[in-house]
Every structure is written in C-alpha cells, then in structure tokens.
C-alpha cells in the first residue's frame, strides 16, 4: 500500500537529473518590464547558455513598517510571459523598410548625391508619395540596414525642418516612468530638434481631470500597501484583481484585517470576488450613486450630527468656508464667483488681492483673508503660502464659519432662493440658502459659503424654504437615495446603509476610507463629474491626506519618482527652453480630422450646460481654436508657417532682438496676417509630417478613431463609412471640401515586436527588449526604484532606444553641416502654465481675437519665446548634460533649487564628454544618465531632498527640512539598484510621507505640514471658480446624464436589422495584456480564447442567435471588428466588452460588411469626443500642464451593432 521509494535505489533515481539539468542556469539578472504597466515589478531574469530562459519575481523589497504585508512577490502572468518575445517569430530582428519606399529611396539616391534632395524628390512627387502611403499596412517589408534607414530618417527630418518647420516633427511615446531613459532618449532628440512631444496620460483618457480640478495635482495616490490601512474600501471602475495583479493581495489581505470591501461594477468582475458587497451599478452611473451617498452623509453627519472631526477637517483643508457671491440672472440668484480680497476695502491694496479669497470670520464678524491662497503663492513676500488659518494682513487667528446658518437667528443672515441646475431632470430647483450681504468696493453683494451651497445643491433642506426633498424617498428630487435608483439600479436602502457605514468608519478611524478607481469610470465623457461625486464623499469625511484614506486612481497614472532631473534631461531643458509639449487629444482630434464627423447640435446634447452663451456655444473645434488662441492649450504646428521662417520674416521686417520678434509676431496674429495652424488644419502647410513612435502602439491600442488615423494620417485603406457633418457647424476653422488623406510623409516605429503600429509604419527599427538594456523604473503602486538591465546583449541587430536616438542625432548633425550649418532661431508658442504666475493671467474670459482685450503674450494669449537651435551640434548636445541645468537649477511643480555644486561635482566624479572646448557630465550611455538622475533627485539623494525641502520652507514659511533630516546621508547609484530595490525618500516634489517605512498616501504632507494644494484657495475644492465652469453648470459637484445613443453619431449610416443588436461598447483593461503588449504573446493567447473576444450577455446573444465561440461582426460607422463571441451571464444585458487592447494583426479575418477587407481592432469602433470645459484655462488650477490638464480621449460613450458573422471567416 505504500508507494514510497527511499533513497535506496540510486540508479533508479538517477533519471532525476533530467529535470535538474533544466533548472540549472548560469546567471540571474535583475530587470523588469518597461512600458505602460504600472506594476513596476522587480524580476530575476534567468540566463542559461547565454540565452534568456525564464523569469521569476524578485522578493527582496525592503520591508515597510511592521503590521503591513510585504511587497513580494510582485509580477503577474503577463510579465512572466515576457521572455517568450525575445526569440519568437514576432520579434523585430532587423531594420525594415517598406518595399515601395525602399525602391523609391534607392532610385532617388542613385540620382541625388544629397540625401535631403533625394527625399525631396520622393515626397514632392504626389504619385510617389501616394504610392508608398497606400502601401502602408499591406505587407512588403524589406530588410534594410541601420545606415540606410538612419540616412533616410535624417534626410526626412532635415527636409521637414527646412521646408515646413521643426514643429512638424512629432514624437509619441507612452508613460515614461517604466523605462524613463528610453522615453527620455526620444524626447531629448525631438526637443533638441524643436519638434513636438505628444502627451499620453490625457490621450489615454487616464488623466482624471477631477484631480486638477479639486487638488491642482495631475494625480497623486497611495501606494498599494496603503490599501491595507484602509478600513472601508469602495472600488469602482477599477478591477484591481485583473489589472493590478501584483497589488491585489493587499485588498484580499485587508479584509482579513477587518476591512469592508464594496465593489461597484456592472459585471461580476474578478474583484467582485473579494467584495463583501458587489453592487452591480449600471455602467457609467456610479456618479448618481455617490451623489446620493453625499446627500445622506451631509444630512446625517454634517447637518444632524455635526460630526466634529468632519467639520473641523472641512474648515481647515477645503474651500468649504470660502465665500461665493450670488449673481442675479434672469430673475434668480445663482452661485457666482469666489469673493476676492480685491473687492474689500480693507484688503484691496494687498499684493495680488484679486487672487486672495475670503472667509467669514466668526471671531471678528468680518470677511477675512486667510493665508495660503493663490495670491500668497506668487506674491513678492515669501513664506505666507501655508494653510494656517491666519489673516494675511494682521496675522490674527481666524475662526471661519463653515455655514452662515447660525446667523439667521440673530438677524444678520437672510435666506434667499438660489437656482440650482438639475441636469437629470432638465429643470432648475430653487432652494433657500443662508446669505449675508457684504459691503464691497462695488456695492452690497449677497454671499454665502461653499458649504451652504453644497448643502443646497445636494438637497439637504435644514428646514429652509425651497424645492428641497421631503425625505430619502423623494424620487424626483436630486440627489436622494430614491432618485438614484432609476440610474444605478441600486436599492435606496443600500445607498443609505453604505453612506452610514462609510461615514461612521471614517469618524471612528479619522479618515480611513478609500476609493479605488480607474478606467471603468474615467473613460466616460462626464468622468470628471463622476470622480468629483466620489471625491466629495472622501472630503466630507476627512479621508484625504490620511493613511488608509483618499482617492486612489489607478489607470495609466505615472509616477516618475525622480522627476526633477529626469524632466530636465527628457525635455533637453539643459540646452534650451521652453519645450514643445502638445496635449495629444487635441492634436489627434484636429489633425486626424475627427472633428469633421461631428455636429454642434449633437455635441451640445451630449454635454448639457447651465446656460447657452458665448462660452458654451459652438462646435468643439471652435472651442479648441479659442483655447489655443487664448493660451489655454498648446497646439503644434503653431503657425501657418515655419517657426524659424517666422523669425526670419520678423528680422526682415526690422526686428532687432527677440522682444521685437515677439512683438512682430503678435501684430501679425492680431492683424490676421499670420494664422494659428489650428485655424486651418487641413491646409498642407499645417500638417504634421514626420512621426516617431517608440515604446508604444500609437496607431492601434491608443488610437481612438483608429480608422480615421489610417485615412487622414496614413492615406491607406480604412473601414470607416462615417459621413462628414461638421461643415454647417464650424465657425473658427477653415473648411476644405475634400479632407486630406495621407498627411504624414514618414512614420518611423521603434519596436521589438511586429505590432499594428510597426505593421503600418514606413520604417521599423528593431529595439532592444526590456531584458536587453539598462534603464530605471518607478511607479506609484509602490515606493521603490529599481532597474532594467541587460541580461543578454540586444539580440540580432536591435539597439536600445537611447542608442537609436543617439545615432539618429549623429546622422542629423552630419547632414546639418551642409543644410543647417548655422544656429537657427525659432519662435516657440507655449500656453499659460500651471505652477507659474500665469495662474493669475485670466481671472475672467476675454478673447483678444474678438477685440475683447489686447493680445499680450503669456497673459491673454500663448507665451512666445525665441530660442536658438544648433543642428550641427545636435549630437554633442544629446550626449552632454548642458550648462542650462547648472544655471537654472532643477525642480518640479513650481519648486526649484540650485545644483551648481552638484553639477561641478559630476564633472569631477562622473564620466564627461568634451567638445568645442567645453566639458560636460556625460549622457552618452543610458547608464550615465541613470546615475546622473539618481545623484540629482531628492527621492534618491538625501542631501538633495534636504535642499529641496529647504527651498519649500522658504515658500511656505513653515519648518519642513526635518522630514529629510534622518535620511540626509542616503545616496543611490545604479549599482545599488542592481543589488536591491531602494525605497524612495520623502520629497517635496510629492505629497506623501514615507519616513520610517510609513506607507505612501497622497496629501499627507498637505494635511500634516500645512503645505497648500496648488489650487486657487490652496485648499481642496468643492467649488470650481471659473467662468467657464459656471457657464457649464459644473461649479458644484453635479450629475449629468449618460448621453443617449441617438446623439452620438456612431450609427448614422449603419442600419440595424433583426439579426443585429445595439449595445454600449466598453473596452475595460483586461487580464491577458497590458494594453496591446502580451496580448499577442502565445502564453496569453493560449490561456484565454486564442483571440481577443467580444463579451456579450447570454440573453443578448440568444436574441441574435449567437452561441459561445461563434464568430461575430461588430460594427458602426467608424469601423468593424471580426472576432469570436464569449457568451457569459457574468455581464449584464445591454453592454459588451472587448478588453483593451487587441492587435488587428493576430488571427483577424476579413469583414464581409466592409468589402471583405481585413477587420480592425477595438479602436476601429470609436472616435475621439472632447469635452469643451476641460479646454478652459488661464486661471488657478485650470492652467495648462503637459499631461496635467486638457480634454481627454473619452471612449466609453460608444454604441455598436453586433451580428453573427455570415459564413466561414475569410482570411
């Protein structure tokens, strides 16, 4: 009965060697996976016989404080499948050039000795240009050599600079944090050229605009270990078990420590498995749920109970006590602008008084001006920008009234009816609000507090007269628990119970309630409102800036920890500034002509506003044009001519210096003799011409409106059938009857795998994989920095991105000796920037182009700066850390500090390069750049951290350097990271505190050390004081309904029949890929369905006769997808998934509906739709920052038809 074989038969057991041999390997190298994935996991790559065999996770992260689960192992099914790529037939091993272009190039080269002339001879011949454009994506690649492709690329680059201007050169690479030097190599190359780098965070629709709106911060979140500190976790739009695989254990473990987990998700998601409550809220309706939760919290915990912790928190850390004036419009009062010190006799002479805001002080019975608001940040006298509740004039301690309600009793306060918009019911409610009259320099003004407005907005009556709901069961009255049922499908009793559990947990734990949120919410058109609804519940309960509390937004977020030195290198700011950083949603919306497929009438129904007026009216492209003219958003190409040509013209017209060049330019624009390119984007001189894509899949996984990219950018086949509808609606933009097809002269893709972008590019350059290069990696999911390292040298002819761009720089420099031998002056247009005094530029909206104000660069219009490019020395500059860094210092988020001594030290202690008599710290090798970053970043060098806090102390006026005292001696090198991941130091560039193993949680620095948020009031904002927000009706948290499919223009010419069904088309992040990476990997395809299937509910499937694994055709006006169906009861009826993001290259058949052409990918079914109020700018936290502000590429409000594929799939 016993099967045991003891060690007695050694001969019998000698066969065990078979498996031992396989397991043995020669070395283990620490590396990781370098793009898009925010896992930031440290891996051990096993090398055997000089070949990468397999990878396993590192488990040696330094521990955090006791009582927290450790970070190990980190690394998921996708990461562990990476080694498959290295030697697979999908690997790009050599440089490739499409045959048609290759032939043209070789012929041209035979007749032109000069490569630039050779390129001109191709692109200036329309039939030549068209011939290779139409061949894009249709096979016919030919192996080339590095020499050949480098020369072609450099020739096209030089040609474009000379013919059209450097700002027609475009570069795109996704979130840098995961391989920051690979990103930086390309960006540095582009910026030294004067080219344009495209943003990513907003384009991916991952930027949560609510974060800038509320906190003046791009995004700052807790590391995943801090979930464990949370005692009530609400997840919505975030499927952490699926998409945050290495972090998910903290969630599972937290509940064994007594945390309650509630998941809001329309489908039974992987994360729902970890829920105590799975609330199947209807897709995109989470906002309605939270609005009702806030109603209950305000009623029970703020009005009835007056919870001291909550009220104290609101007074100190939010704009709740600040005063708002009430303006009369059409006979009723409406919430207006924030009252400023400039309107009060007592304060009006103060510096920046129009940007200092006031509260009602109960001690003095006066409106008073506390420290820390915007005006204090940018005033001459430093040290008053902090959150002490002290009067900015006389230093007296203030006791702000949260509500004016108490004043009713003594007769100083009146109750006036104020109008509140209810977008759900399309009506206006008039509700009583306690109001004081303020004597201002312009007369007597009715004012109230943000808190009182919030009470009224949420419908908490407090016994005041007006359209307040009777109780929680008032179904027609926003935002009661009963009201939300029709939107969410969630019982009112659950809302009430949830609100009580949430608030009482927060009260008992001083704020340990958190929301984990992501793409599932953020990709909706009105995502900013849904986010604000949830954030409101956090702020009301004092949960922000607390360990275990806060809004934890995880999607596409990047935390490039050593941001200060990195951004200097990346933007080539050590040589010249400002850089050309473009917000991508606007760029693609305009240049890929997607605006041509919209109508004002439909857009305005998607985005109901409080009042139709000049601010809110018009086609989205007109909003876009206004935003560029007014300096709210960047746009490149900037003008209808080359920016260096513009300088020459100015000089020819007599401009003697940069100032006069700028003046000339302003006059040209004002006289309409020069136009912004955005005003006529279809004119050939305004097209982007050359596009470099690296580290990403810009033509597929991020290309919303993919089919329009193929049509208007590439000029190749497309499956869109959408009609152009904009002509009647547009006013500010030139309309061309025939839209251009094939705007781009050259598309260059750097890739290690033949993905969709590679397949459609003209040139594919083989890059090193993540196991073949040195780089740095950080994330916000954890608080460590660790390396990518070459376990083996780059395979075949591949090279690292850094080396590729370095070599291109060299080739450009060589050609420049002939073509651009002298330094070139170039005028750069830049928008008004966040974290600069330009936050005070436009407190009111005025359009100089309409004569409403003077055109003043950097004030009423974009800033204009003349810079000098040195193309001959482009390569030299690329490999040298330039003197600009020594001169200007480095910094982030409006904070900077000097590095003169460090720079000089680096010249002594680190590798250097010398040219033209100068000596510079070397950036020749990626590892040099890594060491330089580690030496200059406060997060990795304790002395720099101390110095950065010292700089912050001067601004804030409170002691902060103690936060860096204990770690002042810490230094970090690349070699240290090879040995073990290193924990990041507390730094003023970020808002969490990591001292002594404490888990990072956002805004603890603000709450504990009274450093202001970078907003108008320096506090967290319930109220968004911007004319545009008021016009849109979004000044207070609100609910706007999900757009009706009839107005979305997805199905104008696509007809449905009884064989098809219309569904809301969702593309959540999936299990088998990080965006498109890994989704084409054999391991992932084997463990899933061997394709990227279409998920559909079983009842919906039955209606169109589809059974599991049937082929289906999914289509609308934009394009078509052919794939197999997964039929599952896990999804509710009415919605469908294709998990983000398939390649259209793997097992995709042809589409009978579209003439038997190859079907597309998930982005073939959508089109970008921009929300205009996210284009606003020029004031407070609403000023532009790259990847910080701007409209996002929303994609969830999309409808498709699906039917069973007719016949067998055709290939």
């Amino acid at each position, binding site marked *: *009965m*016993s*099967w*045991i*074989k003891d060690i007695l038969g050694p001969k*019998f*057991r000698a*066969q065990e060697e078979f498996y031992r041999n*396989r*397991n043995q390997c020669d070395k283990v190298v620490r590396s990781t996976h370098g793009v898009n994935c925010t896992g930031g996991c440290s891996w051990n790559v096993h090398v055997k016989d000089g070949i990468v065999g397999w*990878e*396993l996770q590192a*488990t040696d992260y330094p*521990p955090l404080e006791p*009582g927290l689960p450790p970070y190990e192992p980190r*690394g998921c*099914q996708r990461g*562990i*499948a990476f080694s498959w790529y290295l030697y*697979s*037939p999908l690997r790009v091993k050599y440089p490739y050039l499409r045959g*048609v272009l290759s032939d043209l190039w070789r012929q041209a080269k035979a007749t032109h000795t000069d490569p630039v002339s050779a390129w001109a001879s191709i692109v200036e011949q329309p039939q030549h240009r068209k011939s290779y454009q139409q061949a894009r994506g*249709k*096979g*016919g690649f030919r192996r080339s050599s590095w020499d050949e492709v480098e020369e072609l690329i450099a020739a096209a680059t030089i040609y474009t600079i000379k013919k059209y201007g450097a700002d027609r050169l475009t570069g795109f690479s996704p979130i840098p944090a995961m391989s920051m030097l690979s990103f930086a190599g390309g960006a540095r190359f582009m910026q030294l050229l004067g080219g344009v780098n495209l943003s990513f965070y907003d384009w991916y629709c991952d930027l949560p605009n609510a974060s800038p709106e509320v906190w003046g911060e791009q995004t700052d979140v807790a590391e995943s270990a801090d979930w464990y500190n949370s*005692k009530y976790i609400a997840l919505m739009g975030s499927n952490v*078990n699926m998409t945050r*695989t290495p972090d*998910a*254990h903290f969630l*599972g473990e937290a509940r*064994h420590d*007594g945390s*309650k987990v509630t*998941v809001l998700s329309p489908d039974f998601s*992987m994360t729902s*498995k970890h*829920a105590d*409550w*799975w*609330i199947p809220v209807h897709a995109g309706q989470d906002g309605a749920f939270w609005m009702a939760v806030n109603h209950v919290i305000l009623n029970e915990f703020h009005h009835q109970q007056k919870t001291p912790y909550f009220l104290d928190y609101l007074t100190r850390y939010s704009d709740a006590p600040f005063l708002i004036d009430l303006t009369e419009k059409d006979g009723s009062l409406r919430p207006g602008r924030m009252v400023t010190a400039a309107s009060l006799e007592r304060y009006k002479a103060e510096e920046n008084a129009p940007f200092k805001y006031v509260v009602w002080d109960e001690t003095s019975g006066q409106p008073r001006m506390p420290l820390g608001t915007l005006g204090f940040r940018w005033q001459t006298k430093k040290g008053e920008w902090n959150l002490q509740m002290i009067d900015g004039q006389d230093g007296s301690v203030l006791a702000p009234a949260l509500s004016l309600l108490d004043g009713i009793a003594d007769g100083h306060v009146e109750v006036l009816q104020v109008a509140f918009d209810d977008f759900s019911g399309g009506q206006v409610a008039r509700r009583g609000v306690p109001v004081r009259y303020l004597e201002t320099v312009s007369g007597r003004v009715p004012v109230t507090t943000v808190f009182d407005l919030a009470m009224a907005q949420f419908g908490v009556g407090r016994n005041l007269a007006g359209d307040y709901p009777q109780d929680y069961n008032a179904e027609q009255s926003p935002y009661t628990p009963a009201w939300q*049922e029709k939107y969410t*499908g*969630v019982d009112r009793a*659950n809302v009430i*119970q949830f609100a009580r559990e949430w608030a009482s*947990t927060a009260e*008992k*734990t001083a704020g340990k309630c958190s929301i984990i949120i992501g793409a599932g919410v953020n990709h909706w058109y009105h995502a900013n409102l849904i986010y604000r609804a949830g954030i409101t519940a956090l702020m009301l309960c004092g949960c922000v800036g607390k360990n275990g509390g806060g809004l934890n937004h995880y999607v596409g977020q990047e935390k490039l920890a050593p941001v200060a030195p990195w951004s200097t290198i990346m933007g080539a700011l050590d040589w010249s500034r400002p850089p050309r950083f473009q917000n991508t949603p606007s760029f693609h919306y305009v240049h890929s002509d997607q605006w041509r497929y919209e109508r004002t009438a439909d857009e305005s129904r998607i985005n109901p506003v409080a009042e139709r007026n000049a601010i809110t009216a018009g086609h989205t492209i007109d909003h876009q044009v206004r935003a560029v003219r007014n300096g709210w958003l960047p746009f490149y190409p900037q003008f209808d001519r080359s920016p260096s040509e513009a300088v020459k013209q100015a000089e020819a017209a007599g401009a003697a210096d940069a100032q006069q060049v700028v003046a000339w330019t302003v006059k040209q624009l004002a006289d309409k003799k020069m136009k912004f390119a955005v005003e006529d984007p279809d004119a050939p001189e305004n097209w982007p011409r050359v596009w470099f894509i690296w580290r990403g899949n810009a033509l597929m996984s991020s290309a919303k409106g993919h089919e329009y990219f193929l049509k208007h950018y590439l000029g190749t086949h497309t499956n869109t059938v959408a009609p152009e509808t904009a002509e009647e609606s547009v006013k500010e933009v030139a309309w061309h009857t025939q839209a251009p097809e094939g705007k781009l002269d050259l598309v260059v893709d750097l890739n290690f795998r*033949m993905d969709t972008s590679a397949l459609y590019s003209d040139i594919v350059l083989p890059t090193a994989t993540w196991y073949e290069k040195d780089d740095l990696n950080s994330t916000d999911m954890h608080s460590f920095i660790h390396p990518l390292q070459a376990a083996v040298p780059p395979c075949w002819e591949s090279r690292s991105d850094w080396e590729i761009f370095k070599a291109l720089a060299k080739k450009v420099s060589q050609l420049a000796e002939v073509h651009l031998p002298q330094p070139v002056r170039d005028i750069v247009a830049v928008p008004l920037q966040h974290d600069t005094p330009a936050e005070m530029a436009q407190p009111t909206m005025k359009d100089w182009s309409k004569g409403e104000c003077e055109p003043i660069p950097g004030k009423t219009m974009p800033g204009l700066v003349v810079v000098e490019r040195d193309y001959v020395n482009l390569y030299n500059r690329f490999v040298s850390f330039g003197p600009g860094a020594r001169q200007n210092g480095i910094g982030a988020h409006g904070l900077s500090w000097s590095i003169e001594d460090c720079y000089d030290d680096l010249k002594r202690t680190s590798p250097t390069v010398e040219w033209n008599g100068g000596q510079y710290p070397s950036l020749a090798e990626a590892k040099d750049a890594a060491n330089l970053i580690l030496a200059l970043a406060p997060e990795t060098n304790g002395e720099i951290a101390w110095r950065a806090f010292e700089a912050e102390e001067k601004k804030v006026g409170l002691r902060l350097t103690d936060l860096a005292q204990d770690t002042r001696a810490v230094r970090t090198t690349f070699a240290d990271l090879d040995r073990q991941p290193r924990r990041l130091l507390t730094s003023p560039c970020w808002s969490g505190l990591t001292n002594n193993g404490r888990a990072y949680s956002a805004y603890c620095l603000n709450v504990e050390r009274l450093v202001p948020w970078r907003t108008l009031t320096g506090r967290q904002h319930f109220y968004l004081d911007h004319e545009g927000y008021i016009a849109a009706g979004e000044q207070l948290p609100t609910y706007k309904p999900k757009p009706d499919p009839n107005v979305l223009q997805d199905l104008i010419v696509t007809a449905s029949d009884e064989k098809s069904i219309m569904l809301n088309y969702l593309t959540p992040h999936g299990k088998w890929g990080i965006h498109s990476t890994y989704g084409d990997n*054999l*391991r992932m395809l*084997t*463990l899933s369905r*061997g*394709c990227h299937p279409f998920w559909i509910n079983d009842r919906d499937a039955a209606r169109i006769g589809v059974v599991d*694994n049937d082929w289906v055709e999914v289509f609308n006006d934009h394009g078509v997808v052919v794939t197999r169906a997964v039929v*599952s009861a*896990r999804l509710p009826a009415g919605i469908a998934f294709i998990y983000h993001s398939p390649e259209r*290259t793997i097992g995709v058949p042809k589409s009978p509906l579209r003439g038997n052409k190859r079907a597309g990918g998930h982005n073939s079914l959508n089109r970008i739709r921009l929300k205009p109020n996210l284009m606003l700018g020029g004031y407070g936290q609403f000023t532009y920052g790259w990847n910080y502000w701007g409209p996002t590429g929303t994609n969830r409000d999309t409808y498709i038809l699906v039917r069973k594929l007719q016949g067998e799939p055709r290939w």
Partner: protein
Amino acid sequence: MNPRAQVSSVFHLDKCIGCHTCSIACKNLWTDRKGAEYMWWNNVETKPGTGYPTQWEDQQQYQGGWEKNGTQLQLKMGGRGGLLGKIFHNPRLPTMDDYYEPFTYAYGDLTNAPAGDDQPTARPVSMVTGKPMNIEAGPNWDDDLSGSNIYAANDPGVVRLRAEEQAQMFAIEKMVMFYLPRICNHCLNAGCVAGCPSGAIYKRGEDGIVLINQEQCRGWRMCVSACPYKKTYYGWSTGKSEKCILCFPRQEAGEAPACFHSCVGRIRYLGVLLYDADRIESAALREDGDLAAAQRELILDPWDSQVLAAARKAGVPEQVLTAARRSPVYKFVKEWGIALPLHPEFRTLPMLFYVPPLLPLLAQDNQGVQKQAEEFFTTLEQARLPIEYLAGLFAGGNAEEVKAVYRKLMAVRIQRRHASVGDLADADVARARDLAQLSKETIDAIYRMTALTRIQERIVVPPMLRDQAVEAGMDPEVYKQEMGFGRRQPPKRRW
C-alpha cells in the same frame, strides 16, 4: 506508527485572484517543448466551470481514483487484470478534445508577407499538424465564466445541486465565481503509482514527491487514467508520461517551487508534514464525509515526543523534524483546521489542502433594482455560493466541515475589525469567537499567517540533505568534482 515526511501545501482560495502567473512560471520552466505544449502541470480553473481537461471531476466518465469494494480499496478503473486489458485500448482516457489542440500563430507572416492589397494577419496554426486551424478549446477556456451557460452550468459540482440552486447561480443578483489552482497533489495513496504497469512511478522517501521515472516509463498512460485529478500527462513526442515534480530541483536548492514562488496573490504555503504511513489504507476506507477528518488524523504532531521517537526510528532526519514544527501547512490543516483536501472522496489522500473562499453577499432583484443583503460582512448564511457546492469540492459532501472553516474565517475578520476600528460590540466579537471555537491568540496567529508573512514563512522548504542522497549512490566528493560534465540527454524514446 510509521512516521514519514511529506512536503505538503495549502492554497488559500480566498486570496486567489485567478491570474495564472503560477501556470506560466511552470510552463516556462518545464513544459515549453515539443510534445509537452498541451501540458499544464499547474493550471487554474474558474469555479463553477468544467476545468481542464473538461469535466475531469466526473469519475463516472474518467474512472479515476479509488473506490471502496467492501472493506477493500480498489482503483476505479479496475484491478490489475482489468488494467492490462486496457493497455492497448483505454476508453476512459481523455482525448485531445478533452484537453485542447495546442496552437500557435503564423507570426512570421507579419514581417514576411509580400506586398498585397490588404493587411496581413497571423493565422492560428495547429502545433500538432502545422496547419491553419480553428481554435475551439484551450487549457483555460471557461476563464471568468466564459461561456457560462455551457461550461459553468455543466460543472459536475453544479449538476449535482438541486435545480433551484443551479438556477440561482446564474441569476445576476446571485452570480459568483472563484478560482481553483491545481497541481499534482502528491497523494499518499496515489492512483497513478498504483495504476502504472511498468512500476515507473514512485514517491520519494525523503519528501513524498511523486515522480515518473523518465527512463522506466513505457507510455501506457494508465497513470493518466488512474489519477482522478488528471495531473499526469502523456508526452506525445517522447512517448513518456510526465507530471508536476513539485520543482524538486528548486527545493533541493532551498527554493520555493516556481508556481509557489511566483504566486502573486500570496495564496500558497508549503511545508513538511509528518504522517503515519501505517494508517493510509484505513483512512482511505472511511466514509466520504469522514475522509477530510480522517486525513487530518493521519497527520502527526511534530511536538509529540512519541511521534518524534518513531520518526527518528523511521529515519526521518532531525532537520526535517525541525522543519515540520515550522510548517505553515501543519498549522492550517491540523492546528487551525481551516484547510481541506480537494475531492477527498477520490480516496487518494491528496496532500494539497485548500482554504475555501469568502464570497459576496446575496442580493435580491426587484424589477431591475437590486438590494444587497444588509449584513456588514459577508456571512455563512448569506454567501452567494451554496454551501453544498463547496462541501462537494472539499469535504466529500460534508457541509459541516466547510461551515466550521467559515466560522473561523469570519471570527478572524470580526476580531480584527474590533481591534482596528472598534465599531463592533465586545459581545458580538466574543460570540463569533465561541462559534468558531478559537482563542484570541489563535485568531491572531491565523490573521498573521494569512496577511502578513513573507515568503520565508509561507514557504518552508525542509532541508533536502542532498549530500546524503548522493552518498547512497556515489562519493559526494567525486560527485562535486564531476557534476555537470557530460552531455545532457533526453530520455530515450520508446519508439
């Protein structure tokens, strides 16, 4: 008493996130080669679902494991005589359709396609025939309830339930799923060993790891049939069968098996157990509902002096006894009683134990508006999965076994909530503790092991004492001098 040492495991299903990292760790290291493509020594299944190979749990179909024949235990597929009769034709073997036809793609076509009038695509290609194929199955085909009304609905555990319980599981307000990762159980009463006509399968004396001798195997595939978990696989290229080796080469180097190491949900625990080999047969003969308990009884107390004396006498090294006292598996299975064997009614005495998952509360649907049960935490009574389903998986149908575990898991959460938030009444906490029959200290120990431990505490690999193992065959000094020289050779093919 005949104490033996067994490297054993616990998978904490409440923590499993169904990511399959474990599967790929294993695939990369062991089965990424010709003839082994379809093998997943480690796989993860969505429950409810039919698994891999399809409906492997249905022993009516596959005839794996053991059955009681009076007071005798015999292989369900038949005695030795019956076995030999099936050597050339065994209708109970899973076919390729029950697994899946392994596939890849014509990836190279993307780079090499000639210029044409449409975009090239990489078509799926069979790894068996090399020809284009339609993908109709895979090793994880019903992942996350894919095809729920075909697969989840035909889960043998679901089919056994009452009709109303079955219907419940697919209504959205009661919808539920969880994950079941599976490797070889390295059973005490392994069906594969008993079924092998060649005597090629053995259980290592020092650690109980079950291995197929790659030289001795003749490819009869009786092990495939006899294993009720379908965890041995026939290698169609080598003509040998293979199975999970519990990464013994990694363990011999003191490292966790690859799937344990890579488990990012941190659900896997490994450690040595001492058991009484003399009582295997009597334990395996108990009634279905008693088998989980019987298996617990087999496990010996590594602090008991009598056990230790007998173990020493049986040749269990002192270092292994020390490791047994640090074993997290002993705590989960024996001390705390919160880990149960998978399908104990197969009577192989599997040495991998599972902590069952907590699942969300039930809801009610009222004309499209859903109402959650109002309990604060999920509960035994209101959980979405019928307790009978779990009992069918982990306790031979004995619901009391599963309930006992749930009471303990809930007591941990309640006591910790009390400690970390303090919004529960003392009396409620005490009641939960009493119901679970756990002390405060034990609850804290369970909590700590579940949530806080690092890999060194989760995975306690006993010293494998390679010096002594080598010494049985040759002088370790010579071994040291010569190891690695010579060519690596795959085992000879039989034909």
